[in-house]
Structures are given as C-alpha cells and as structure tokens.
C-alpha cells in the first residue's frame, strides 16, 4: 500500500481514465479526476470511492481552454505523484476533410491541448524533483491511414512530444514520462465499431498496463495488447507504394 500517493487523471470521464484511476485506487492511491463533463466524472468518482473505499474528488477542466492550463496546475491543492492524460477524440475523419473547424478540434484535442498541459506538469514535477507523466497516445500515430489521418497525425505529434519530453527530463533525474499506445479498446469512443476480437482489449487491461509501466515495472513506451507491437512493426515496415493501395 502506498497510501500517501496520489494520482490525477485528465479525462476522468472516459472509460480508460476511469479504469486507470480505479486500478491505482485499489492500491490505496488518492484519486482526482479532471474532466469537462463533471457529471460523468462524478459518476466515475462515486464508483471508484464505492469500490475501493478511497477518497476520490473531481475537478472541472476544459483542456481546449489552453490559456487556463497553467493556472489549473498551479491551483492544484496537491501536486499528484502521477498524472495520466487520456484526453482524446477520434472525430469523424470524413467530416473533418470538409470541415476545418472539426479538423482543428481533432488536432487540438489529441495533440495541442494534452501537450501544453503536460508541459506544465513537467515543469512542476521537475521543480519538485519527482513524478510520473503518463500520456495515452495511440497506435494510430505510428502510421497515417486513410480512415483516420487527422486523429493519427495528432496522435503522432503527441507521441513525439512525449518522446522529446522524456529525453529532456531524463537528464534532470527523477521525472519519468510513459507513452501508452493502446490499440483497439472497447470504450464509448469505439462503441459503434466492429473491432477485431484478438486485438481488442477492455479498458481495465490498459489500466493494468499503465499501472505496471508506472509502478511495478517501469517502462518508457508500452503497447497495450503486446501483439499490437508486432502488427504495427509490420504495418510500419510496408513500403508506402504498397501501403497506399491497401485498405487498412
């Protein structure tokens, strides 16, 4: 039991955010969920408190209001030991192709806002000398695909941001950055899709892998559902001349 530790989940109304917070709470970590949809976050917080007996609070945060991110971090009553950012939005690729506003929102939600927010935590953690930053990116960022390239491009940017941040902080010492690349996860975001069963995981599997990568077996980059690492290695190795003819 690490009873004094605390975790802050950005995107606390999401399924992965909920599962991750619950995984930490079961080890006694205190939990704060930050989200734009406070009612949904509160429903998750009640669940976590009831299941684990651990004190759980919610905080209002709209990450797209980037001007307020520094104030949010500075205003936290407790700087958490671990911050997990699961903010993301798949968006509708077809619509985004003709709707620049939607395309902008997808890019900002998956890349700009999480990056600016985690930069704030990086500075606060570095000043304190400890902390773990977990960014949930996506295997969609490993290679651009016809079906979701705004989402994929933004996730690619976020993945590279996390990589650069990790490199910067590695020289400073005790602040860690973990990049998580889930593949297909059964969540609200994917509820309308048919997903390939052997490659699809439940949110609690993502949560377990995040907890392990942070606490029990520290790692920098993790693919949830290990076989996805192989799938993406193959996909990334395909020459562009061939890849562009495939409907993947």
């Amino acid at each position: 039991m690490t009873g004094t530790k605390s975790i802050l989940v950005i995107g606390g109304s999401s399924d992965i955010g909920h599962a991750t917070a619950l995984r930490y709470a079961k080890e006694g970590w205190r939990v704060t969920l930050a989200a734009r949809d406070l009612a949904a976050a509160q429903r998750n917080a009640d669940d976590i408190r009831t299941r684990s007996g651990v004190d759980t609070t919610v905080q209002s945060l709209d990450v797209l209001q980037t001007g307020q991110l520094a104030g949010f971090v500075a205003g936290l009553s407790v700087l958490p030991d671990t911050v997990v950012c699961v903010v993301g939005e798949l968006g509708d690729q077809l619509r985004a192709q003709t709707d620049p506003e939607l395309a902008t929102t997808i890019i900002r939600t998956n890349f700009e806002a999480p990056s600016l927010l985690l930069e704030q935590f990086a500075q606060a953690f570095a000043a304190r000398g400890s902390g773990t930053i977990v960014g949930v990116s996506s295997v969609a960022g490993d290679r651009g695909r016809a079906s979701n390239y705004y989402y994929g491009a933004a996730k690619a940017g976020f993945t590279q941001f996390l990589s650069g941040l990790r490199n910067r902080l590695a020289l400073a010492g005790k602040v860690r950055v973990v990049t998580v690349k889930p593949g297909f996860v059964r969540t609200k975001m994917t509820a309308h899709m048919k997903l390939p069963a052997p490659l699809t995981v439940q949110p609690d599997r993502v949560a377990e892998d995040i907890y392990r990568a942070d606490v029990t077996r520290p790692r920098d980059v993790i693919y949830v559902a290990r076989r996805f690492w192989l799938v993406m290695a193959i996909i990334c190795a395909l020459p562009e001349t061939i890849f562009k003819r495939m409907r993947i």
Partner: protein
Amino acid sequence: MSGRASGISDPGGIRLSGWGNYPKISTELLAPQSPAAARDDLLGRSGVVARGAGRAYGDAAIGTQATISSRGLNRMRRFDAATAQLTIEAGVTIADILAAFEPRGFFLKVVPGTKLVTVGGAIAADVHGKNHHRDGGFGTIVDSFRLALPGGEIVCCSRSENVALFAATLGGMGLTGMILDATLRLLPIETAWLRQDTRVAGNLDAAIDQLESNASSTYSVAWIDCLARGAALGRSLVYLAEHATRRDIDRLGPDLAPFPNPRTQRLSVPELFPAWLLNRASMRMFNELYFRRGAAHQGEPRLVHWNPYFFPLDAIADWNRIYGRRGFVQYQCVIPLERARRVLADILDRVSRRGDASFLAVLKQLGDGGGPMSFPLRGYTLTMDFPVSDTLFAFLDQLDALVVDAGGRLYLAKDARQSRATFESGYPGLAALRDIRQQTGATTRLASHLSARLGI
C-alpha cells in the same frame, strides 16, 4: 488505429443467443453508457428488452426488435458500512460486488450458481440460491430499484413505493421496464469460508430425506448422478453448508487466512470442443470418480472457499461450448412438495433411460416465491442440461406434461422452448404481470422473444 475502414458501424443486425447458444436470433443491439442514455434508448421503441450479461439460457434477453445491453451501466454509487446498503447500477455483476466487498467482510445473502450475472438480471429473474428454502430469493435483499418505463418515466420501486410494480418486476423477466439501478443489503461475514458437510444419498428418496431433515441448514443442494438407474436412481451427494466463523477456522483450518487473496486460475473450453469426449462411457467414469471423491469426505466437515462452493462452473470460462454448435437447453422445473418424490423419480427415470442429459443434475429445496412471477414455489427443483437434438423437444414436452400435471412450473430464465399452455398453467401470477404491463404501457413496447413465444 481505431479504423473505420475495417470497423464498419453496425447497420442494426446482430445475432444473439442466451447462454445455451440456442436459439440464435437477429436483433438490433443498443449499448447505452449511462442510466440516462438507457432511458433515452428505451423511449419510443417497441419490441425491446434489456439484456445483462447474457446468462439467461434461452430467449429471455433478446428483444423482438431491439435489445438494450445494460453492460455500460456498470458503476457503483455508494456504500454505507453501517447499514450494509449498497447502491449500484443494473449492469454491475455479482462478481464485481464480491470482488469489491468480500475483502471488506461482506457477501451477498442470495447468489445463483454463477457470479457472472448482472444485478438487473438477478432481479428480473428473481434468482434463487442454495438457501432459498430458508431465506427466499434475490428480491429479499433488494430494498429498492429505479425502473425506466417505456414512456420514458423513471419510477422508484420498493416495498413502500410502487409496491405492485416492485413485486411484478421480481421475476418479471424485464417485461415491466428497464432496471437502471438498485439498492441491496449486503451480508456481513466473518470469513470467506464455508463449513461444508457432505452426505451420500443412495437414491432420490434418500436425497430428499437428507434435504428435508436438514432444512435448517443455511445452504443445501444435492448433485444427482443422472446416469444411475434402478435402485440407485437419483443417487446424490448432498452438500450442506454454513458461513464459517473465525472459531470454525481455528478448529478446522488454523492455517487458513480468513480472507485469502483470490487466485486467478481460469480454464477455458476451446471453441471446437471434441464432441466425442461427451459420451456415455466418459460421463459414467466422471460420475463414478465424482461420487467416490464426495463419499470420501462424508461425515467430516470441511472448509470450502465461497468461490468453488457457490460458483463451481465459473472457473471454466465458456463451459457452454462443450455442447457444440447446436447448443443446449437447461431444463429446470419445480414440483410442489407433496408430489415431488413421485414426479421427480418419474422424470429422472425417463432422463436416465434417454441418457443424453448432463452427467450431473442439481436438486434443490425451494421455499415460497417472492413476486407473482417468481419461479420458486414450496417444493423441489431439478436442473439438467440437454444438448439440442432432433428428438429433444418432443422428449421435453413429455416431461412438461408431468410437471403440469403435478402443479409445477419451468424457470423462465432457463427456458427456450416450453409451450404457452405449459407456461400459463404454471404461473397463476401472470394476470398480475399483464395488469401492470397494461398500466405502464409496456404491453407491446417491452417484448422479448420469450414474451412473444409465451404470450406474456
């Protein structure tokens, strides 16, 4: 990689079946992610029914037009340790509750034979446990629930509020409305163990004698060898059990932790289970071993963990696959007390002659039912699996005739094939359910394949 190219959103058709893999039926499947969304999905639809974990064996949780999954309604709300009252959404499973509260010293007073059912489903079927003869069904631990009616109204039901709706929903198979959440009372326990006594019964009469003379036992159940015939017809192992106290542990298992950490050992049945493994010789051998092992424990009380005691089959994921692609039906009847011995002997005799039932059947004493549509009535219930075959349904019709003649009934949560006549003769409370359905506007709006088949 959340692909649209391969991930085409479903145009509304999905093939669903119950746990018995029979029948398989096309329906639209909705997956709301909150109670409010579930209510919205229900609003204005017809031919719809809620579905929990899909553990009803037959066609009870498949809507004639659409099926609303409650699995997204899986959040717990609050727990009050002083009153042991727990409020949870309808899609929370019994396994979820036990995982969260068993380590804190709480159990559920009524559990069915699998923990992989949702709370909503447990209420809708008013499931019974091995203590039904003493403590009643799942409804007895339910203080209240919120029900979404087809018109979109959300009503709170309890023993003091919307009383008739509360009662009709217990065992109402989801036909009164969609259960959104519920408040239950948990049972404080001193340890995770049960003190189990095993008795060997040479035949059916002896088994019923054992259950009768131990009616004060909290938990009791008999496992019957369906292959035994003649004088040994109905030979059984009778398991009696009580929640073990700390003193029981000191006496019977001083090395045991009161609440041991759960082990994660899960066997799984492969998709194509070789059918030849299920033959008469292998089943006979299994039963012989099973009964010898049980008999060896006779007379000495043993400590058994709650998990294998209550949920022996949950350790084998997808055990329903052993019956192959055509699926199986589970036949569960209850026979009123005074006729039970003769009629159950007749049923067992026919089953053992036919020879394709599950190797083990379960015999259990039941008390009075909880709601007008609750399955239990004072008497004995017998449960058997039968693989679906060309001759099966005609055979089960014969068993139905015996059940009807004895004033018994079949369990709707297990049913996939009984006739309207069999059903109507077994459930005199049907009129009350129909009244309620009329009043709430549920008559055509809430309809499962079971309700359409049986004319509910």
